[in-house]
């Protein structure tokens, strides 16, 4: 659609701009403020320059959380995106079961995140949980509060449970927009199942899959509540992702300077990666 140039459109955007700016800019300035100052209480602040940033960037603890965060995000994207596409491909294209499938699949998305954590905690308890008890019965020693690997396995499984549906629903929306005639043409040409997927379905899903990857990246990168309730970041620091570490530093240890500098670095990393995805998406739009 061709848009007309009209600067008065600013008035329509203004309310949103003011409200979001109130919520975003004031807190962000507070964080920036803390990140360059030292305080000993009593509202006394001393300018510290980039000391906190240097501390954070040099700290092994930050490196470890950042590495864990990237590993977690990478693992869940590698599982959820292909799995979600595969499930969307097998879903019925029309009929009464579509609504039933969609409603049941959307269910995990609407459960408060702490309930998701609590639910998986109950599910994974080695003595009374279905998963924990079951695995131990099968002869696999499993205790997510003691073994780092079991904790990772549980956190990843929980995230797959929680968010794969988002990818399914997005991919399914993409598939539904393909006209039936395309499939008929492919059938006449004797196209294989793989080439139908490669040349008809995948290009149509391209756009929604970028949205899926963008949303999943952003949300998994900020994950806090679910692993916090499930494992508390443990055993040890095994599942302490960036947000958990940050809240620990800010509210637990009250290390304001460090926490603020960490926040800014954290935000910038999220922004940078999201910007790359966004640019790719917008380029796809223009074509």
């Amino acid at each position, binding site marked *: *659609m*061709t*848009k007309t*140039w009209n*600067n*008065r459109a*600013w008035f*329509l*955007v203004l309310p*949103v*701009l003011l*409200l*979001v700016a109130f*919520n*975003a800019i*004031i807190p*962000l300035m*507070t*964080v920036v403020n803390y990140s360059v100052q030292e305080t000993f209480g009593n509202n006394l602040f001393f300018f510290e320059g980039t000391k906190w940033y240097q501390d954070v960037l040099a700290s092994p603890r930050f490196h470890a959380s950042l590495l864990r965060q990237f590993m977690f995000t990478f693992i869940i994207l590698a599982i959820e995106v292909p799995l979600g596409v*595969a*499930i969307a491909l*097998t879903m*019925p294209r029309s009929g009464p079961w579509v*609504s039933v499938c969609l*409603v*049941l*699949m959307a*269910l*995990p*998305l*609407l*459960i*408060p*995140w702490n*309930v998701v954590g*609590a639910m998986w905690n*109950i599910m994974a308890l080695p003595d*009374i*949980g*279905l998963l924990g*008890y079951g695995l131990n019965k099968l002869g696999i020693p499993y205790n997510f509060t003691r073994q780092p690997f079991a904790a990772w396995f549980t956190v990843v499984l929980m995230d797959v449970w929680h968010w*794969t549906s988002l990818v399914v629903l*997005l991919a399914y*929306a*993409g598939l*539904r927009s393909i006209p039936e005639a395309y499939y008929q043409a492919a059938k006449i040409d004797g196209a294989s199942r793989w080439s139908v997927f490669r040349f008809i379905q995948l290009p*149509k899903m391209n*756009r*929604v899959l970028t949205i899926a990857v963008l949303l999943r990246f*952003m949300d998994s990168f*900020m994950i*806090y*509540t679910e692993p916090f309730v499930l494992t508390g970041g443990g055993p040890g620091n095994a599942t302490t992702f960036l*947000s958990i570490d*940050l809240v620990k530093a*800010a509210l637990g240890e009250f290390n304001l300077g460090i926490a603020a500098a960490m926040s800014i670095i954290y*935000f910038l990393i*999220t*922004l940078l990666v999201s*910007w790359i995805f966004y640019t790719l998406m917008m380029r796809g739009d223009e074509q």
Partner: protein
Amino acid sequence: MRLTKWLVPTLYITFLLLPIYWLVNMSFKTTNEILGGFSPWPKNFTTASYVEILTNPVWYNGYISSISYVLINTVISVSFALPAAYAFSRYRFLGDKHLFFWLLTNRMAPPAVFALPFYQLYSAIGLFDTPWAVALAHCLFNIPLAVWILEGFMSGVPKEIDETAYIDGYSFPRFFVKIFMPLIASGIGVTAFFCFMFSWVELLLAKTLTSVAAKPIAAVMTRTASTSGYELGLLAAAGVLTIIPGAIVIYFVRNYIAKGFALGRV
């Protein structure tokens, strides 16, 4: 072939429902039975946990405050986002692309980054521990999302409709409410659904911005789990009750879910 087609969605849905079943199962057990060991279904079926939640004001007030801030947030987000989305979908103006991306960056801001400054900001303006504080704070990520989804739906409406209405003598507000909004009604529904969803599931900000009066149900739950021992039955029942509002909302938008999740831009 037919069988495998059914197999994958069925297996997946079973996987989704198992933890929910386990939660429901726990919620109908007595504390003794839960601590006594593994059992696949409740042997001494009891609704005591539910009775406790529905009669104790500490518990049910949690639900009331959660629902009130979620509703306030949904109304604010949608009504603020509507004109802005219209501007983005119809006009080019100074800095529009930058503004759009800046709005989206707020969706990318980790709530953990904002928890402490939000606490100070909302204490300073006297809204701390009210549903308004949480509702306004959740606008940080819900308004950008609402603008994004609505813009997608609005771009699907041909511009000729606007022009015809203006020629017929409609003023902008009248055209917007009488003609344009009914055309994108499903888009508004989907947007409201997303705002409801992300406000309902968020805990970190909701917990930071409230203490007693407006404490959300999620915070009541975490406090129960940590203070009065490990009352799994109560926790499970409270969890089951938090699933219900979501399930009702999904049921209403079930026919629009597929399109809505594509944010209107397939």
